[in-house]
């Protein structure tokens, strides 16, 4: 599903972009960096080609840390198993902001314009996160129509869910992977792509699920 309507309402959170570049909450960007970020953020719609795809699958059973999903898909992760045992269904998604932005970043670094390249790269990452929120909202509305709620997003490579499980995510997706390709090394191309799942089930059971408070990885970027 390619979505030109989303493209025009891409709202880049410049605060997030600075955060991503290491400014934290109280770092003050210089005037030239500030205006560069603004300029790229305002023109991001010319650089992104947002595209996403998701499928909603039945959960057949959960045994230990393994979750059996229709279509011979098996997710292995304790965190994901504890989530999905509360759910009736699972939405599996892949999304991307496309390859053009990456090409421009590559060109900029090739021309020795590293400041521009680093800023645009960080904005691209933020754009991917923004699109993930959009997908989450869409799945949320669909669940709501059935009187159900949704969980937070989880992606292979976070918690105890290995990156190699990307293969199962892509198997669940079937043929429509929003133009994203998975390499043998489980890297998605284009680079600014995100994959993952969202649990669907009774609102009171799924919305509150959060494995972070008891997790040891205190500096994890995904900590919620």
């Amino acid at each position, binding site marked *: 599903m390619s979505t030109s309507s989303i493209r025009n309402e891409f709202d880049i959170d410049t605060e997030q972009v600075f955060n991503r570049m290491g400014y934290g909450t109280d770092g003050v960007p*210089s005037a030239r960096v500030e205006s560069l970020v603004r300029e790229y953020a305002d023109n991001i719609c010319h650089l992104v080609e947002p595209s996403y795809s998701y499928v909603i699958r039945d959960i057949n059973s959960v045994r230990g840390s393994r979750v059996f999903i229709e279509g011979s898909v098996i997710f292995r992760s304790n965190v994901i198993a504890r989530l999905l045992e509360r759910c009736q269904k699972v939405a599996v998604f892949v999304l991307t902001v496309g390859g053009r932005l990456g090409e421009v970043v590559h060109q900029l670094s090739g021309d020795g314009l590293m400041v521009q390249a680093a800023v645009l790269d960080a904005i691209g990452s933020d754009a991917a996160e923004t699109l993930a929120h959009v997908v989450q909202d869409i799945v949320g509305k669909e669940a709501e129509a059935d009187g159900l709620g949704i969980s937070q997003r989880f992606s292979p490579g976070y918690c105890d869910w290995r990156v190699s499980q990307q293969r199962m995510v892509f198997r669940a997706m079937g043929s429509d992977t929003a133009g994203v390709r998975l390499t043998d090394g489980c890297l998605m191309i284009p680079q600014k792509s995100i994959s993952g799942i969202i649990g669907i089930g009774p609102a009171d059971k799924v919305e509150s699920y959060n494995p972070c408070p008891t997790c040891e990885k205190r500096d994890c970027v995904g900590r919620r």
Partner: protein
Amino acid sequence: MTEGDIIVRLKENVIQGRKNQDEEGIDEKLSGTPGVVELTRLALEKKILLEEIINALTAGMTVVGEKYSSKEYFIPDMLASAEAVGEAMEILKPILEAANVETKGKFAIATVQGDIHDIGKNIVAILLRGAGYEVNDLGTDVPTEKIVDFVKKESPDYLGLSALLTTTMTEMGVVIEALKDSGLRDRVKVLIGGAAVSDEYAQEIGADAYCVDGFHAIKVLDSFQQAKTS
């Protein structure tokens, strides 16, 4: 402008991250005044000693490093400064070569086979260039044979390897094994980096160091140099 002025301004403009006269820098008042490129050319015209020019550039970068550590400067600021110094080094390169002046060392850097993540690698490359290393960027998704071949033919002092994910970093171990098999492992120090890589992983595969970022790499390289001279 006296020779002393040129040297002072050279350092100041590195700190400001002003590659050339059109750039703003941190302090906007400087716009229109000569930047690092113009000042380097001017210094050469005035026959200022190469050593003095390089010292001014390095002194500027040292201040940038300090400002980065104290969180006054951030990644874009340090990149602007490193870019400016990198450009100055390009101008000086032929003269350095003609005068047979040795650089701090040759650093080859690559994102390993199966991985295409390049922004981190490029940041490290420009920082090391700014610190006075001769950097050869081999690119992304670089086959192990190509890396080994480069080490064999060009004898870099250091090899930097980058990867984004735990599934792609394993190729770093493959590169180190291939270097051993070719009898080249002792000729080059291997530094590894990337979000999924760690100190433990460096030890596991027998790399010489894991670096969090480019400034860390500069510190590690300095310590290697000290070990060599002491």
